[in-house]
């Protein structure tokens, strides 16, 4: 029983961290103590935090390396925005429309996750990583060739043609214009929406990890053959983790897209997938709070370094390397642990530490 209360304690710590960060940032924003460029980063930070936490479910908890996470973000972004624009007349209330769009984005990304999961989850290790990478690119290319429009008769979809092939009526509006993506989005993402999505994500992920299913997923990661021998249905739980991870990424995609007036498919490319993976690895595999902090800090740093202009990516790289060295150094870690005392906000206790 002691163990359970300990995990509950560290979960509260994670929720608390997010809420306090929200309160502090709101306060600073209200008093005008935040630069406009940083203010513009608040929603993307939230989206990246959700991406990192959801990818942590696949990489840290399930133990499978996925390199196509941006693909699911893309599916969520485009389906969410299409839903949002289509529902504009029907639901004038922006927050409600936003919420519904995120749910639709999550559902579509979850479905994409299931479809991709069927072939991909038969593979393991490097092979799985390569195939997810390919699927991420495939999603990007599909959306690049996709044309979607809406008029009084409903949605029109066309593939590999051009926007004229949509046969829209007089009142029609092209939503996705192939490689041009979506333009003219009404920005209805807010920092508050982002924080709510983070909290929902944390609620889903932390509860899953501490549930019977979560135990089964971690058992799979630890030793697949042993897991099979105690009667854990391997495919079911792999799929569960993968689909939930994809769905959360989809919601994050919607949040992200609704923060910009224009969104194109190539934004969600391999680099984005790697960026999110860097958040997860740097934050610690299986460590949710670590993912949150890494995503936030690593999104802010390039912005802060903007004044160094040409050198900023260089400095960014050096910072990354230093953090890697610091977090993988046993002496440094034990010192850090002494400083932090007993607070160990990892979701899975004794997750692999060090290299």
């Amino acid at each position, binding site marked *: 029983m002691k163990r359970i209360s300990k995990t509950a304690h560290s979960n509260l710590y994670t929720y608390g961290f997010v809420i306090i960060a929200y309160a502090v940032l709101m306060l600073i924003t209200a008093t005008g103590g935040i630069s406009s460029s940083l203010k513009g980063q608040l929603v993307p930070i939230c989206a990246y935090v959700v991406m990192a936490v959801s990818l942590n479910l696949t990489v840290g908890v399930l133990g499978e390396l996925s390199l196509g996470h941006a693909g699911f973000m893309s599916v969520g972004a485009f389906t969410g925005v299409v839903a949002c624009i289509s529902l504009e007349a029907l639901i004038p209330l922006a927050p409600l429309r936003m919420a519904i769009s995120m749910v639709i984005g999550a559902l579509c990304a979850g479905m994409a996750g299931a479809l991709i999961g069927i072939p991909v989850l038969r593979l393991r290790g490097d092979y799985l990583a390569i195939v997810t990478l390919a699927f991420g690119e495939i999603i990007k290319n599909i959306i690049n060739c996709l044309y979607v429009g809406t008029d009084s008769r409903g949605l029109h979809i066309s593939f590999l043609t051009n926007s004229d092939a949509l046969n829209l009526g007089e009142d029609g509006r092209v939503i996705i214009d192939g490689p041009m993506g979506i333009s003219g989005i009404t920005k209805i993402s807010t920092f508050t929406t982002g924080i709510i999505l983070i909290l929902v994500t944390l609620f889903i992920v932390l509860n899953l990890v501490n549930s019977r299913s979560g*135990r*089964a997923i*971690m*058992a799979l990661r*630890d*030793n697949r*053959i*042993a*897991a*099979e*021998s*105690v*009667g*854990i*249905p*391997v495919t079911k739980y792999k799929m569960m983790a993968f689909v939930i991870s994809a769905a959360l990424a989809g919601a994050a995609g919607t949040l992200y897209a609704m923060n910009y007036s224009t969104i194109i498919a190539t934004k969600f490319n391999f680099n984005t997938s790697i960026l999110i993976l860097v958040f997860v690895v740097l934050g610690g595999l299986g460590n949710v709070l670590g993912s949150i902090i890494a995503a936030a800090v690593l999104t802010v740093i390039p912005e802060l370094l903007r004044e160094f202009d040409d050198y900023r990516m260089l400095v960014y790289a050096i910072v990354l390397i230093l953090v890697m060295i610091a977090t993988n150094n046993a002496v440094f870690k034990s010192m850090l642990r002494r400083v932090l005392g007993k607070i160990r906000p990892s979701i*899975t206790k*004794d*997750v*692999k530490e060090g290299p």
Partner: protein
Amino acid sequence: MLKVDNINVYYGAIHAIKGVSLEVNEGEIVTLIGANGAGKSTVLKTISGLLRSKTGEIIFLDENICSLASHKIVERGLAQVPEGRRVFLQMTVQENLEMGAYTRRGNIKGTMEKVYAQFPRLLERRKQVAGTLSGGEQQMLVMGRALMSHPKLLMLDEPSMGLAPILVEQIFAIIQTLNKEGTSILLVEQNAQMALSIADRAYVLETGSIAVSGTGRELIESDNIRKAYLGG
């Protein structure tokens, strides 16, 4: 209680198991011995549903389990202790045992106590992370974990592998105790001497088919077996 009838298993083009049939009756210890690569583990994996046979059938408690998924087979009461001490390294001893009861609903406390009574060593170490246990302790842990599912038949794959002789003796004593308490045992072993000494019946597997079968005593006294497997 378990009847394996004419199974054929292939690894790609390689015909690994050629028409093997064997039987385990209620309350028996049956052992399957043979040299490296004879196909002993393959037979076990096929029974527990990790590999599929192209022909024949596997009947467990009057039900054909040939096409069942491996987790369904565990639910039926047929547990396997896989080869090579596969514990969940990052979980504690207690959590490993809890995972063993994965297919069961309801209270597992009684079973847990029984397992701890059987393996007092595990009780001492119950909060320790399984990766830090010694080889012998890990073997006890995987056996205890399999017992948590309340199996009617326990299949052990090379429980003596890589253990000191004194530990091997301990493990075999435990197998006998389990058997006396009502669990039937199917034991795959390289250590033919030990296996035959506790087995009611035995099968000798040679390059994918059963070469000899008989009671443990018969085989231990047979000259051919002695020469081939018991070292003179």
